[in-house]
Every structure is written in structure tokens, then in C-alpha cells.
């Protein structure tokens, strides 16, 4: 490795824990969110340096992008509420004295957990299944030519299945909180801005194309349902922010069906494949490629819709009514 590469890796490795600590210890929520987004971007760079462009893409799009936007949305809603209290300090400080009991109550469990994790990693048994060679075989057989997608859907179908389940659950939880619908988080001057409207018009087709491309490319290159869903979901978020989408994206039956579609298709394929081959999500020979692509297609749609739906609500402005 070249000297410059070593310096870059060193900087990345050093800045990650520092950023994580600053994000956790920042008293000001807005500052914490900005630090979290920075952490996500640096983490994406680190994944890219480690030769994992799939994870880098997912981290940049979901970890830094969509999560950051959701957190900013929340902080915006909370700070509107706080402004009325007049209790907000002008310049929040990050150095706050905490009693030693609090410090102890945090430090001891965290140390035990870290020790346990370190022990678990160090005492891993030799893997029963030789994953790399299995994946190599599957890729060689030409079902899905990209190793990461092959792992994710051929051998880790369960993980992906549960992930989309978690996403669906998150949307249900947010809905059941009874938050008010987002009107437009931006001030009137911005949401009505012709510049923003023109920008979205310019961006929308490009984002649709790149989303579909990521989905398609996922079978042979870095990409896949979550990355594609994140790009399309980001488009949805931008459209919500500009007020293009809110009136039409309610909570009607169509939206509900769309949210559930990815999970439902995955479940259906799993059950049908169980009836056919005896194993849940054990795809029958010869059908892997088609089934995986079909699942990925519906997953992308549901992921994009879920991410957008998560964005259409804001925290309540005031507790106990009045707003």
C-alpha cells in the first residue's frame, strides 16, 4: 500500500471514533445530527477503502442520507417546540459535569458488553460452512454474478427478509404514534421556490434511472434493492419537501398495500419454495435468478415507499394540545 493510502486510511480510522464520540456527547441535537451525518459519510469512505462498494453505497444513501434527513426533520420539529419555552441556552456546551454514579452506571455495562463482544469475536469457532467457496461456486454457476447479491439473497435470504420486515414495522410504528402530517418543513419562501421546483424536475428522471440501474446492476455489480430503494426513497423525500407528493401520499389502501408488497412477495416466494423444495426460501434449481430479481424488484418499490412514508410525518409541536 502506498504511503498516501496509509495516511488516508489512518485518518479515516482515527476520525471515526472521534466523530462517533462527538456525536454521542454533543448536547445540541442539531450538532449531534450533523456529526452523525459526517460519521456516515466517513464510514462510507472507509467501506469503499475496504473494497466493499455495496456497503459503502448503502451506508452513504441510507446511513448518512436518509437517516440524516429523518433526524434533521425530527430536530426541526423538536426545536420549533423548544423555541416557545425560552429555556434553550444560546450556546450549548458539550462539557457537562455528570455525577460519578451516572458515569459508573454507563461505564460498567458498556465495558462488560465490550469485553463480551471481544471475547465472542476471539473465540469464534471455525465456520461450519465454507462461505467464500460456496459463494464462489454459486457465482461460477452463473445464477447471480455478483458475490454480495449472491450472499444476500442466495444464502442470507433470511437476513434480507427480516430487514424488510423491520422496515415495514418501523413504518407501522411511526404511523401508530399519531404524528401530524408534514405540511412543509421548509419556510414558505423555500417550498415555493422556482429554483427548487426546477431542481426536482431536473433530478427526478435521473434519480429514477439510477435507481432502476442500481437494481439491475445489483445482479452483476455493486448495487441492489436497498441501494436502489434508497435512491428512489430520497427522490420521494425531496418531493415531500417540495410539497409535490404530500397531498397524494396519504394512508389509503393503496399506500398500505405498497408498503407491505415487498415483505408479502418475499414471504410468498418463501412459502411457495418451501412447498416445492422443503426449505423456506430454498429456491428451486434453475429459478434462482428470476426469483431473486422478482424479489429485488418488489423490495425496491416497498423500500422506496417506506422511506418516503417515514418522512411524511413530523413530531408534534407541543405536548398537551394547543398546536
Amino acid at each position, binding site marked *: 500500500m502506498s504511503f498516501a493510502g496509509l495516511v488516508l486510511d489512518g485518518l479515516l480510522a482515527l476520525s471515526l471514533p472521534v466523530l462517533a464520540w462527538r456525536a454521542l456527547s454533543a448536547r445540541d441535537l442539531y450538532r449531534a445530527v450533523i456529526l452523525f451525518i459526517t460519521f456516515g459519510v466517513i464510514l462510507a469512505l472507509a467501506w469503499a477503502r475496504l473494497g466493499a462498494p455495496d456497503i459503502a453505497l448503502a451506508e452513504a444513501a441510507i446511513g448518512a442520507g436518509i437517516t440524516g434527513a429523518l433526524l434533521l426533520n425530527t430536530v426541526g420539529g423538536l426545536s420549533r417546540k423548544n423555541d416557545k419555552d425560552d429555556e434553550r441556552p444560546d450556546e450549548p456546551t458539550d462539557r457537562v459535569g455528570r455525577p460519578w454514579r451516572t458515569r459508573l452506571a454507563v461505564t460498567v455495562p458498556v465495558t462488560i458488553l465490550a469485553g463480551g463482544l471481544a471475547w465472542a469475536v476471539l473465540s469464534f469457532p471455525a465456520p461450519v460452512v465454507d462461505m467464500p467457496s460456496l459463494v464462489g461456486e454459486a457465482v461460477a454457476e452463473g445464477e447471480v454474478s455478483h458475490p454480495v447479491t449472491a450472499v444476500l439473497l442466495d444464502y442470507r435470504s433470511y437476513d434480507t427478509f427480516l430487514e424488510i420486515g423491520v422496515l415495514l414495522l418501523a413504518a407501522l410504528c411511526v404511523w401508530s404514534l399519531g404524528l401530524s402530517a408534514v405540511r412543509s418543513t*421548509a*419556510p414558505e*419562501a*423555500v417550498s415555493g*421556490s422556482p*429554483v*427548487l421546483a426546477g*431542481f426536482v424536475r*431536473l*433530478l427526478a428522471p*435521473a434519480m429514477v434511472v439510477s435507481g432502476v440501474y442500481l437494481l439491475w446492476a445489483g445482479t452483476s455489480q455493486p448495487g441492489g434493492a436497498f441501494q436502489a430503494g434508497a435512491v428512489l426513497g430520497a427522490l420521494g423525500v425531496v418531493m415531500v419537501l417540495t410539497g409535490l407528493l404530500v397531498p397524494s401520499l396519504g394512508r389509503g389502501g393503496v399506500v398500505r398495500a405498497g408498503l407491505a408488497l415487498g415483505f408479502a412477495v418475499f414471504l410468498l416466494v418463501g412459502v411457495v419454495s418451501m412447498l416445492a423444495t422443503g426449505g423456506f426460501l430454498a429456491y428451486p434449481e434453475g429459478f434462482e435468478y428470476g426469483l431473486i430479481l422478482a424479489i429485488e424488484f418488489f423490495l425496491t418499490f416497498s423500500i422506496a415507499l417506506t422511506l418516503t412514508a417515514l418522512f411524511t410525518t413530523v413530531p408534534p409541536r407541543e405536548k398537551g394540545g394547543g398546536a
Partner: protein
Amino acid sequence: MIPALINAASMFFVVAGAFFFLAGTVGLLRFPDVYTRLHSLTKADNTGLGLMMVGLAIQSGSILVALKMALAWLFVLVSGATAAHLISTTALKSGLRIWRKE
């Protein structure tokens, strides 16, 4: 002769781009208000990234890769300009005063 020339040109463009990024970062840290900071930030993004893309594009040796880089640069240009416009408009509407020399 030609490879050496290409390398020299690449080096020039990348270093020039890095200089713009450095100047933009210094401006972001040192300028007095949000408007001037935006000004320095967008300069760095637009020109610095453009110069770096030129340096890397002539190094890639492929028209397709160079076009992709140009496309990425165009998207950064458009989104940077839009974001700067939105931030400055919001700042102005919410009453942030423009810095004036005393």
C-alpha cells in the same frame, strides 16, 4: 513523452482543484456570516471538483469514464447551487443580517 505530459497535466489539475478546496475550507472557517461562507463553499465545490475531475478524466483514458465524471460534476453543480440558494434564501427570510464591514 506523451504519458509524461498526461501525468504532468493530471497533477496540475488535481493540485489546482485541491487548492480551491483548501481555499474554500479556509473561507468556510474564517468568513464572518452564512452568506460569505456559502460563497466560499460553492466556489470550492464547483471549481475545485471540476478541476479534479479534469485531472482524473485525462488519467482514465476512457471517454465513457470521462463522460460519467462530467455528469457527476454537473449534478454537483446543480445541487450545490440549489442548496446554496435555499440556505441563503431561508437565512434572509428568517432575518439573519448580512455582514457589513464596520
